[in-house]
């Protein structure tokens, strides 16, 4: 089932000095429960695509449709940023509960508590419910950020280079976490990354954008069974292929 259909999305940015075309023609489809990685040369507007989907920016032209074929409402997305963006004055618990407490959701207090506890255990952070973010490691902060985004039950979880600021060990752990969450909750993931290994390890599909003004250059299906081993020849080959498409723009 399609959850997201992008057709001919374009975006032009202008500031005082310059005006430039970031996205020229982005079209792609994302299916329910898929993990899709979005790659491309730096500055090609990968993050802009996510920001448009999340409602933080608007596109200049093109259409975005949801599962019912109507115009896609950004309410159905949640976003995880590179630098977690946790509210430093709120405990882990309150950070996760944040979205649930917004008026649009109309969720009773009791239900929120239950939900937050479920999420805390989903990301293995039960003991840290009352801790403030600055007391956590980078990997733990990002787990909380993921839980906070999952709390509002998004149809699609958008992630903007979510693990690139983490040490290799935490990064690997969180990548496995993403796969596990998809397998248990059926969440759809749309992940911007600049790391070809990450894309090959995580993605069911990899979408590669061209240089600015960008359009979709290549889509690669990754059908290898999980858990994947990046040391296998097939995987090494795939990483090389992806790297080639990204670096040649």
């Amino acid at each position, binding site marked *: 089932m399609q959850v997201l259909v992008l057709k001919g999305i374009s975006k032009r940015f202008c500031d005082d000095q310059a005006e430039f075309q970031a996205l020229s023609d982005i079209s792609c489809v994302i299916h329910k429960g898929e993990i899709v990685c979005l790659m491309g040369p730096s500055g090609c507007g990968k993050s802009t695509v996510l920001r448009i989907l999340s409602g933080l920016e608007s596109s200049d032209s093109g259409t975005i449709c949801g599962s019912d074929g109507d115009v896609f409402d950004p309410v159905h*997305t*949640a976003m995880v940023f590179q630098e977690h*963006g946790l509210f430093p004055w*709120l405990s882990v618990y309150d950070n996760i509960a944040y979205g649930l407490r917004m*008026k*649009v959701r109309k969720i009773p207090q009791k239900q929120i508590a239950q939900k937050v506890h479920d999420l805390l255990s989903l990301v293995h952070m039960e003991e840290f419910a009352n801790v*403030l973010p*600055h007391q956590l490691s980078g990997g733990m902060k990002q787990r909380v950020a993921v839980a906070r985004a999952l709390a509002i039950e998004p149809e699609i979880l958008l992630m903007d280079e979510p693990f690139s600021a983490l040490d290799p060990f935490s990064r690997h752990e969180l990548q496995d976490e993403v796969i596990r969450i998809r397998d248990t909750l059926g969440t759809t993931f749309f992940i911007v990354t600049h790391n070809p290994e990450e894309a090959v390890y995580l993605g069911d599909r990899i979408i590669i954008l061209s240089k600015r003004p960008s359009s979709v250059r290549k889509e690669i299906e990754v059908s290898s069974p999980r858990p994947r081993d990046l040391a296998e020849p097939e995987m090494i080959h795939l990483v090389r292929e992806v790297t080639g498409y990204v670096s040649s723009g």
Partner: protein
Amino acid sequence: MKRVLPILKGFAIPVFIIVIWQSLSMYIQNSFILPGWETIIPVLIHPAEPLFGGASLFQNSLISLQRVLYGFLLAVFIAVPLGLLCGWSKSAEDYVNPIIQILRPVPPIAWMPLAIAWFKIGFGSLLFIIFIGSFFPVFISTIEGMRSIRIRWLEVAQTLGATTLEKFKTVVIPGALPSIWTGLRLAFGVAWMCLVAAEMLPGTSAGLGYLIMFAYNLGQIQVIVAGMIVIGVIGIVSDSIFRIGQTRLFGWQGKE
């Protein structure tokens, strides 16, 4: 020992000053220039005793504190909302900023003649001076606090479904609060200094500043020194309360 040593170091200079003071006062033998500590200490250890047949040291301190608190709170209730408004709306800031910038460098005490003309001698004019003194630090640090809010926090709030009002309540206010708190701390210090100075002007009839001037007119220098010590102690205690509050409430600050 490691924790005691810095405290001992802090006591060294005051003790040194007191010793020199005492020796000089014994040498000079003139209590109008340097009263001995044997006359200052009794004033301090009997704070409830009436001085010069009037209010005691304690009562005068209480009156001063009460005045400062009223003026300070009045300033906070006006400066914080106004600061939030100016931090939120560029247009509001454009209106308010020039007048604030012109008035800010005027020492609060310079308002005293106008304050007396408008509010008469006494509580009203003192309240006004304290208000002027504490308004600017609170107002400016509230705007500063709004500027320190990360755009990322607002974006996160928006993607999680926050309306503008919810963003204001759940991101802007908590995000700006540490800076506002710093403003309160500064403001209280300024207010305290302004008050004592204002109380020293002719026409007041109570408070620590008044007590000091009254003692001066009677040539009771030991009461002046005792009064100054009390002013200093109240200043340090109130500042510590704000400082402790800062670490308790905003431990997250600067650590994200």
